[in-house]
């Protein structure tokens, strides 16, 4: 399990008019193949449609044993962390392939929030806090929720009203974060807040990792339409220690943008799994559903629609690979790549989801088949970390100046 070999991305410099990069190696290492196979086998056993429905309907809305098993039996939560922290030495590619497998069963595990976002921030800042918390993530003892969105802020990461006022050695938090996925399960909250500035100003934004049980944190919990649990989180004079600050005070925005980009690509990887299942489930259904004396898969108009779904799934995989490999490029290039990816994948998720339901006919709009539940997750993915429109606009700002 030790020879994880992920080459750093180097951009080939060109003096020509075109930005030309090529991939000459698309293969996965043995370790990566093993991660995928192990996880896929485990999820096939634990995440069938009925089990998933049961865990969602339970009091906590999840099966905590699965997270423990992912950590302790499979070692899966360490895949993207360094060996010094007790991980397997992987990174973005490992996150992507784990998210894709989770997508194939529409898992409701807080991997994105805990490992990709929380872990990503900790890896980026390093130091004592990373040494303390990362091993706990790997061990399955820590669940992190990312409290960043605010009712007025839409997809603008800098539009923050939550404040963190300096108070002696620590800070005092006040504000409201909306739709914080996994917050009801979290041991920690990763919080964006203003230590200075106002509105959408880039300066003055800071990132904190705090204990979720700190006095003054008030939650209103609820289920989400795609099977997760989330909360409205209110900070009412929450006193937090100074070492909860990740990175430099007031200069957290680039770090936040980076981890959100990493999470955006991870969600695209999840979408690859979700849409692949929407497509294969639709094919399977169309083969066995008879109307007009034949399987409806014989009708060319449906065949061509299913081909279009296939092409969207394949292109989503291509874009996700592209963006995963570009996550360590300088910020502007990374952002353009991530936005290109998310814009394409958002539209694919919409098209594939809607087509799957349409091809199923009436049964598609019921809760009875898994297909509808995949559709719901695909629909939420469309706008998670920014809709297609948001990402087209960001791509344009970065690449299509006058």
């Amino acid at each position: 399990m030790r020879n994880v070999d992920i080459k750093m991305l180097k951009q080939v410099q060109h003096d020509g008019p075109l930005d030309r990069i090529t991939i000459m190696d698309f293969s996965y290492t043995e370790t990566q193949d093993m991660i995928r196979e192990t996880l896929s086998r485990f999820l096939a056993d634990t995440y069938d449609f009925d089990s998933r429905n049961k865990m969602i309907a339970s009091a906590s809305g999840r099966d905590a044993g699965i997270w423990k098993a992912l950590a302790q039996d499979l070692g899966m939560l360490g895949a993207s962390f360094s060996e010094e922290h007790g991980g397997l030495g992987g990174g973005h590619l490992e996150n992507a392939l784990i998210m894709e497998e989770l997508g194939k069963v529409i898992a409701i595990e807080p991997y994105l929030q805990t490992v990709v976002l929380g872990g990503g921030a900790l890896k980026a800042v390093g130091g004592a806090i990373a040494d303390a918390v990362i091993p706990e993530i790997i061990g399955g003892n820590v669940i992190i929720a990312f409290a960043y969105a605010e009712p007025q802020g839409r997809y603008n990461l800098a539009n923050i009203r939550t404040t963190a006022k300096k108070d002696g050695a620590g800070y005092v938090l006040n504000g409201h974060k909306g739709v914080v996925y996994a917050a009801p399960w979290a041991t920690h909250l990763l919080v964006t807040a203003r230590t200075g500035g106002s509105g959408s100003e880039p300066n003055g934004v800071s990132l904190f990792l705090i204990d979720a049980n700190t006095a003054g944190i008030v939650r209103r919990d609820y289920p989400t339409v795609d099977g997760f649990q989330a909360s409205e989180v209110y900070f009412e004079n929450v006193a937090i220690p100074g070492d909860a600050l990740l990175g430099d005070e007031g200069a957290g925005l680039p770090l936040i943008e980076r981890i959100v980009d990493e999470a955006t690509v991870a969600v695209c990887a999840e979408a690859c799994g979700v849409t692949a299942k929407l497509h294969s489930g639709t094919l399977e259904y169309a083969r066995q559903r008879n109307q007009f004396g034949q399987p409806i898969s014989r009708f060319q108009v449906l065949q061509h629609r299913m081909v279009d779904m296939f092409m969207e799934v394949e292109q989503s995989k291509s874009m996700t690979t592209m963006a995963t490999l570009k996550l360590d490029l300088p910020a502007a290039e990374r952002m353009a790549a991530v936005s290109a990816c998310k814009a394409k994948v958002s539209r694919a998720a919409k098209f594939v989801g809607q087509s799957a339901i349409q091809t199923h006919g009436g049964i598609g709009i019921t809760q009875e088949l898994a297909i509808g539940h995949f559709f719901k997750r695909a629909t939420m993915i469309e706008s998670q970390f920014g809709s297609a429109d948001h990402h087209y606009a960001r791509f344009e700002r970065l690449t299509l100046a006058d």
Partner: protein
Amino acid sequence: MQLEFSPEELAFQQEVRTFIAENYPENLRSVQDEGHDLSKEDFLSWHRILAKKGWIAPAWPVEYGGTGWTATQRFIWSEELAAADCVGTMPFGLSMVGPVIYTFGTPEQKAQFLPGILSGDDWWCQGYSEPGAGSDLASLRTKAVRDGDHYVVNGQKTWTTMAQHADWGFFLVRTDSDAKAQEGISFLLINMKTPGVTVRPIITLGGEHEVNEVWLEDVRVPVANRIYEENKGWTCAKFLLAHERTGIAAVARSKRGVEKIKSIARTEQDGDRPLIANPFFKRKIAELEIDLTALEFTELRSLAGEAAGKGPGPESSLLKIKGSEIQQRITELALEAVGHYGAPYFRGFGEGDNEHPIGPDYAHRAAPTYFNTRKTTIYGGSNEIQRNIIAKMVLGI
């Protein structure tokens, strides 16, 4: 996984870039820049330079005149050709009949035909389609009847690209009318100067003379010019179609096309701002560019699969569909970008017409190119046929 060239590959890139810069014919460049139609000699001038260098057929096996380049080197080569806006080489010899001949031909046939394909001395055309046999190619009716050492061929082919220049054509003909559609077909090489061969122009929407009708009346073709066995021509045809599809994504050329649109959109004014600042137009460019990136990485994944011994599978139909749609969208946006000056039409333009055309240079061919490019979703297996192929071969329905 990695996204990088090795130092050797970077050196190779530099080498081909320098070669192109130093050897691309200057008069050809000006013909292209002014938007004239290319003559046979224009095409051949660049072909001959590449042939002399030994770089005319990178995809061929070395023993037949290939370069022995790796897939990466071939990729770099095609990117550099597109970036330098070089004219393409004609595919009919190099990408189509050449591979059929070295794969299925006799030693004599290889010796007779391959050198002329490489040197450019023989110009080839493809005689498959007929008025009654388009997508359903196997319904073709052109007939070849054995008469001693010859076949006597009668029938009509159509859409034959550049047949007006051709020395040779490769034809699918029916040699057994009683067999099932695909089984009675043979693959014949016909000298276009043979008595009974008549080529008539068909003028396409941009005003170009690009395609032709080819009439065959009692054309005597030596049996020695049949490739592979009698009635087994469909095997060659299928093999050739697979070859025809590689490179069909045309990513490098489309990237160049997108760059051209951006530069037009920065020049054209839309009220008091450049067109590229118009949010609707800008969004269309962004969509195009992102879709092209998706195509590029899908092609790279497919190439990587091929290098690992997997492909080129029927998923190459995906590359054909998306590649052709993108080519069309590029011409569509270019025409939209030039505004009023899409309208002026130059009849006989390119045949000694010295008057400077009206409007900016980049507008001259915007409309004709848009019209002409509607072909990309029709030929090479229409996009509907490609969807049928994916449905059957990939999805199994």
